[in-house]
């Protein structure tokens, strides 16, 4: 017989009053502001990371940043500096390999990912004693952000936010199609490296708040949840920010109330938002009841919502499009819409 020795620590739930009182303390105000900033920056950068298909690159940056943190702790310096150096080195290296088409992205990312993890374990192994700072960086805790680290977070977050805002339209074009952007005169090469550095900085500054293991979830998941709702970039960014900020602040609240690491509570919250968004996604529901395009006219359907193409094979059939002038709902027709055999038989009858 299998025997389970299942034991969890006793969870004490703090009172709401205690939480509200804690908001008067400087460390809690710092934590709350940091949650806001991390939520905003991760969400914005996440939108472009998601659209550009760079999800695994972020994972590699997070692990390289952890190696940097371990080195910082080993050397007794503020870990943020080696974190930034390691993060930027890994991002730029992967970018270079990608640009020169030396090998496939996933190969170099896989190599970097494991190498930096090995480095981190090596640095931890060299420490004379196990530092609690390592746990703090691995799992993250918004409540432990020092004043100095908060200042650095604020300055770097402002830098990332401002830069992304300035190059947003070019990044959008590159995300749509890099070759087109390049031919049209966008400085694709420079902006690619700049973006990689911004991704590295965003992940690095979020490390203390969310933790090396989970930091990337806060980059990808808010954007992935927002992606389920809209077809517009600005709305996508806005929704992603709302989800990101809500997750980090509510995560902080949960973390305080039940005394758990804030990184994990934030990620659980944002993943719940993603699951809900995925299940009720208007984009998916819309697609489920509709087909891509009119298989008969396969061209623009005018404002009237009815196909007016004189060459359309289905001009004699009840050929109605919905108010968006694109979708033809399957239930309009008794027959399968893609089955065009009834058109042929009608033609045969006419002949």
């Amino acid at each position: 017989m299998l025997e389970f020795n299942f034991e969890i620590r006793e969870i004490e739930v703090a009172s709401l009053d205690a939480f509200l009182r804690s908001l008067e303390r400087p460390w809690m105000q710092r934590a709350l502001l940091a949650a806001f900033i991390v939520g905003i920056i991760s969400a914005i950068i996440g939108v472009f990371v998601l659209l550009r298909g760079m999800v695994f690159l972020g994972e590699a940056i997070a692990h390289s940043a952890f190696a940097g943190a371990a080195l910082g702790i080993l050397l007794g310096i503020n870990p943020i500096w080696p974190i930034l150096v390691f993060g930027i080195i890994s991002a730029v290296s992967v970018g270079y390999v990608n640009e020169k088409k030396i090998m496939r992205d996933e190969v170099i990312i896989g190599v970097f990912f494991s190498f930096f993890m090995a480095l981190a374990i090596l640095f931890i192994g060299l420490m004379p004693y196990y530092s609690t700072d390592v746990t703090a960086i691995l799992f993250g805790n918004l409540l432990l952000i020092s004043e100095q680290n908060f200042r650095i977070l604020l300055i770097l977050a402002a830098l990332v936010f401002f830069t992304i805002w300035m190059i947003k339209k070019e990044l959008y074009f590159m995300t749509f199609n890099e070759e087109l952007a390049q031919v049209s005169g966008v400085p694709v090469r420079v902006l690619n490296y700049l973006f990689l550095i911004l991704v590295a900085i965003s992940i690095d500054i979020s490390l203390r708040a969310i933790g090396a293991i989970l930091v990337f979830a806060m980059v990808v998941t808010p954007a992935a949840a927002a992606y389920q709702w809209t077809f517009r970039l600005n709305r996508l960014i806005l929704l992603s920010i709302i989800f990101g900020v809500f997750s980090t602040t509510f995560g902080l609240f949960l973390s305080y109330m039940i005394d758990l690491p804030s990184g994990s509570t934030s990620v659980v919250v944002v993943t719940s938002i993603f699951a809900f968004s995925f299940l009720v996604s208007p984009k998916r529901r819309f697609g489920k009841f509709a087909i891509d395009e009119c298989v008969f006219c396969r061209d623009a359907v005018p404002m009237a919502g009815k196909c007016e193409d004189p060459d359309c094979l289905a001009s004699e059939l009840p050929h109605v499009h919905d108010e968006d002038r694109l979708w033809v709902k399957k239930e309009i027709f008794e027959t399968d819409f893609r089955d065009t055999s009834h058109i042929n038989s009608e033609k045969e009858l006419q002949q």
Partner: protein
Amino acid sequence: MIQQSRIQLDTVQESNKRSITPNNSFIRLKDVAVAYGQEVALFDISLEISPGEFIGICGPNASGKTTLLKTILGIIKPFQGIVTLFGKDVSKGGLSHADRFRIGYVPQLLNIDRNFPASVQDVILMGRYSRIGLFRRIRKEDRQKAWEAAEKVHLEDTLKRPIGHLSGGQQQKVLIAQVLAQNPEILMMDEPTSALDFKMARSVMKLLDELNRNYGLTIFTINHNIRLLREFSQRIICINKRIAFDGSPNDPVLESVVEKVFFS
């Protein structure tokens, strides 16, 4: 090296080569040869393109059609010969920032994610980004230009629709509008109809013809479909690493050249 890879094409019709005065030509290539490493992709290319022409480029796979287009665009540098664009030699350096806007490039049909967060208007506006410049916001004037471009390709009713929801032919027209928003003088297209069925391909070619006739736009398009090229272009250049034919679509020689280039 060139001699070894030289394909014996005895069908170059000198009489078909157009005599265009240099002053009149937009683009001029003289004895251009391009290689990828040791492999020669193009050689002995001399041609001139004048304003307002509708030129169709044909040739089998790996015949150097895209290389020719990229050489003109300055993306690939020739190892021999001179490429002149708007009177400036671009064989060594690239296009100047100002001249870049004078040429619009439309690629093959892109594989656009149907959920990509961009409307038709957003995609057309992208064509204005280089003109607007880095760190600058989109102006009212840019939106106006985008609308005018959409109007030229008859997509003004679809501006709010997500780009991924359009049919292949419409998406290609959006990409043409994106380039038109730059106000180019030449449209260079790399097999814009390759992934489309005949009906859609014809509607795209018809649109190009309209742009050429109504707005005087110079069209330079690669297309595998000789039937469509014959119907719409004023000049056909058939290449197989070098120019095998350069002349009118009605030239009786074209048939035999195509036969030789594609099937021999």
